[in-house]
């Protein structure tokens, strides 16, 4: 029963393919059908997850902000995404007269494609990787680079000053945060000795003392790298407090200002799917992927664990969005280049020391020191630079 749940999706696929095979369908058609089924499943799961999250995000934000949120469409407002979808599709699609219409039209498409493509290499469960690639992590970042082009195309193609400003911000931000993002991801690849996500997940298997999971996030270097990855993931997916390209209080809607109707919906969808993809990568690299947190919890199928963790990370992102004000562009860039980048190098060094010091108590002390000291120094220098201080005020009677 347990094992059947664990591999249920794969079993169903194989059973279906076997059934088709028994009707004499040639093997190459079966291969295409199998690929289509897998693609359909992933897209279906993530789009329904997107629909669910778009309503959950609004509910959670509402909860944080002392209000109700959507509660009219369906029970608890659960049909809100459907209502939104119908509204988006039936809305007029406006293209500014002076816009570069080809670029304007292509931008949402270019945005959507990488967001969906990167889903291919994420290990969703035990033996459940749609495309097992040797260089999976490299693929993730290489394909993910396409979003930058899309954001730029959207901003420039609209021929709107806010949009162009948003596009410039987006490029500066994404280039800056790409570096610490990649470096902090490479740290895990270095420790597990492989660029393949499933190998990295299996390197985090097992339990120390029988109950402490050996996830990378629970080591000093992994914690640092994970935090850096998380922050950069927020920046890469344009989430608050790094939502400068959109920056609705400054740039109206940044690169999305001139988008309406279905094109806007496509952007919206792509941003959420991209967010899930990067959450999935975060879970894979640092939170043990599909592994259960405690040994006896193995009875729950691995793909449930994976989805659960992804949803949890996505929830924290929503939480951050509800809590923090937005950074300014110069703070943002200074933070990336002067704090995150050196810290990711420190995490890199720390991981190397951890590996060569034998992964024991000595390794803990060493790697903790290597990430801790730069953190204190850089953090001090950084807060001093902006002269952040408490003030005293004078009172006159």
């Amino acid at each position, binding site marked *: 029963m347990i094992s059947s749940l664990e591999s249920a999706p794969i079993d169903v696929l194989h059973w279906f393919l076997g059934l088709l095979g028994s009707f004499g369908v040639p093997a190459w058609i*079966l291969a295409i059908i199998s690929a289509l089924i897998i693609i359909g499943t992933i897209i279906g799961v993530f789009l329904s997850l997107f629909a669910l999250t778009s309503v959950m995000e609004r509910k959670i934000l509402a909860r944080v902000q002392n209000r109700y949120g959507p509660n009219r469409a369906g029970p608890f407002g659960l049909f809100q995404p459907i209502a939104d979808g119908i509204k988006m599709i039936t809305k007029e699609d406006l293209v500014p007269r002076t816009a570069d219409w080809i670029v304007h039209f292509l931008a949402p498409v270019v945005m959507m494609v990488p967001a969906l493509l990167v889903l291919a290499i994420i290990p969703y469960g035990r033996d459940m990787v749609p495309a097992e690639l040797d260089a999976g992590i490299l693929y993730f970042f*290489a394909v993910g680079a396409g979003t930058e082009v899309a954001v730029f*195309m959207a901003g420039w193609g609209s021929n709107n000053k806010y949009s162009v400003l948003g596009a410039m911000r987006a490029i*500066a931000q994404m280039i800056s945060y790409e570096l610490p993002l990649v470096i902090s991801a490479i740290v895990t690849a270095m420790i597990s000795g492989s660029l393949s996500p499933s190998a990295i997940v299996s390197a985090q298997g097992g339990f120390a003392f029988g109950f402490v999971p050996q996830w990378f996030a629970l080591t000093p270097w992994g914690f640092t790298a994970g935090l850096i990855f998380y922050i950069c993931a927020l920046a890469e997916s344009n989430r608050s407090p790094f939502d400068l390209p959109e920056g609705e209080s400054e740039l109206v809607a940044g690169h999305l200002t001139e988008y309406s109707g279905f094109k806007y919906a496509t952007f919206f969808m792509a941003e959420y799917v991209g967010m899930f993809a990067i959450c999935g990568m975060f879970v894979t690299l640092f939170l043990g992927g599909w592994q259960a947190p405690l040994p006896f919890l193995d009875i729950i199928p691995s793909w449930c664990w994976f989805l659960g963790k992804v949803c949890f990370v996505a929830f924290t992102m929503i939480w951050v969005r509800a809590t923090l004000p937005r950074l300014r562009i110069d703070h943002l860039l200074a933070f990336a280049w002067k704090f995150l980048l050196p810290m990711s190098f420190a995490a890199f060094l720390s991981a190397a020391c951890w590996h060569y010091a034998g992964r024991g108590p000595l390794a803990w002390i060493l790697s903790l020191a290597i990430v801790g000291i730069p953190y204190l120094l850089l953090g001090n220098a950084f807060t001093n630079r902006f002269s952040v201080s408490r003030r005293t005020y004078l009172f006159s009677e």
Partner: protein
Amino acid sequence: MVTDFLKTCCADPMKLIGEWFVILPALVLLLAAAAAVVMRNLIHAALLLTLSFIALGIVFIALGAEFVGFVQLLVYVGAVAMVIVFSILLTKPDQLTKSRNLLSGFAPAAGVAVAFTALAALLGFIFSSPLAKKPMPAPASAPVAAIGEALMGDYVIALIVLGILLTAALVGAAVIAMEDKP
């Protein structure tokens, strides 16, 4: 039976769609490159250049050099193309259409002529060379681990030099482009 076939298909996509896996992206590559070269609008040229980079990356992947293909996408699409676009925006965004297309005088014609002479010569050599008529050998692949070991083994000096070069280029570019502060 089915799963075995699936595995071979995934391992070598060439088997499924054959040479078209190389030819199609190569065609896209050439068309995009040609369009990028003749485009008047610089941003369009840069975007088409990005497209040709993507197509080139796919050609690499189709030829079995996965790792290089991904590196190509990551570096060229993610960084070089964006830096080009950014510098276009930073340098006279207002004059994009006014920009003269070609050099003045005979220079452009001469340039094109040189390019086509070079092309003719190259094509002549290529089609007369016996080496070039070699048939395709068995599918090859470059495992990431092997590349990593080569980079850290025989080629480690080159890698370090490259690292130093990139650092120097980064610092140099930052210094060059920095505002002259009075």
